[in-house]
């Protein structure tokens, strides 16, 4: 392969990465439909979040889930639209709304670091840990931020990488809430 082609490939890679997610997808991340097996995640003590265990996704509710990492700049930017959507739709009884970090938490990055990041970014809903990547793997979340809307039967209705404006998030959530 000629250098020119390689550079073209390289440019494409970076080009797709510019949006802020690792790469904005040209492949279907899930590749298949079907329900997602739930996982027990640790939730941490942070604004709007209590230390405990949560079942994700919670069958019978619509789940809005965003994977993030504290090192991720785009994830910082994503907190504002997430907050707007949470304020707008978070009151629904049958909506599970949470953010999950899948970075290695426990040693260098502590629960307190995550909680501080959360407070700094005006987080006000449940925040959980997927340190062992179980849920990340199950949903094939290959980057951060990565947002999912999962319907009441635990089937993924929406999965998108990268920055999303409030409208882009609200649409699939409202649609999924309306689907019975």
């Amino acid at each position, binding site marked *: 392969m000629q250098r020119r082609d390689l550079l*073209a*490939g390289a440019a494409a890679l*970076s080009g797709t*990465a*510019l949006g802020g997610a690792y790469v904005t997808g040209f492949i279907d991340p899930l590749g298949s439909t079907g329900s997602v097996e739930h996982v027990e995640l640790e939730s941490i003590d942070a604004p709007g979040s209590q230390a405990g265990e949560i079942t994700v996704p919670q069958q019978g509710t619509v789940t809005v889930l965003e994977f993030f990492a504290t*090192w991720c700049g785009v994830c910082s930017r994503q907190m504002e639209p997430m907050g707007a959507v949470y304020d707008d739709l978070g009151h629904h009884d049958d909506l599970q709304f949470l953010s999950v970090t899948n970075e290695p938490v426990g040693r260098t990055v502590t629960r307190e670091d995550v909680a501080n990041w959360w407070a700094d970014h005006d987080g006000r809903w449940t925040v959980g840990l997927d340190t062992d990547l179980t849920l990340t793997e199950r949903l094939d979340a290959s980057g951060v931020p990565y947002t999912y809307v999962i319907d009441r039967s635990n089937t993924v209705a929406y999965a998108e990488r990268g920055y999303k404006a409030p409208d882009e998030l609200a649409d699939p959530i409202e649609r999924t809430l309306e689907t019975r």
Partner: protein
Amino acid sequence: MNRHSNAPSFDRRRFLTVAGSGVVATMAGCLGLRGGNDNVVLDEPDAYDRTVEADVDWPIYGEQIPTATVPAPLLDRSVTTTEFTGERHTLFTFIFTRCPGACPGLMAVLRHVQADSVENDYADEVAFMPITFDPEHDTPSVLEDYEQRHGVERSLEHWFTLRPETPERAQEVVEETFGCMFERTEDAESDSEGETMDMAFMHTSLVLLANKDGYVERAYTGDVPAPSTIVDDARTIVEGW
């Protein structure tokens, strides 16, 4: 930056064309050109034939890790990329810290393996070598902050953030020795979604995982690999050794 300063969408299409042809090659089946690979633990990667055929510049499955000696300024020493041969499995990636897109993901992937190596007791069997190709900006203190931000554990003496001394040396090591292409871009460009951002380089997104004998087990390129993919592969090599 004149050769491909045209729209990224053009380049993207080129890339998709290459990816598309890979599907055809895979469907056409094995080309039967390679010999056995006794030097590696992992099975042949997907689309291996296509990668061989494409004659990419970076080392792929079963090839040896190239040799270069590069300063590790945070440790006040130099590291030769092959110096752990016989002792540790190695992971390499190629980054610049101003990078908003792929690079943090590449660092995170290495961090996940580091965390897993601690958790599962193989920290002294692996070494991590992220290499910057932007030494002008990535001074030792910038690199230290970057490690900190990513939660790199520094006490384990297996993480070596490498910094070629000059842009010319970065070119030699990263591009000519490891075959990882990078090219300086204009400072502000628009991506395909019209978002303006500050991108100093375009580059191949590449992670290399090599075994203790110094042979590449996997070259992850294209999309940033899922952390669990590399963690699984690293564990497989550690266990299969």
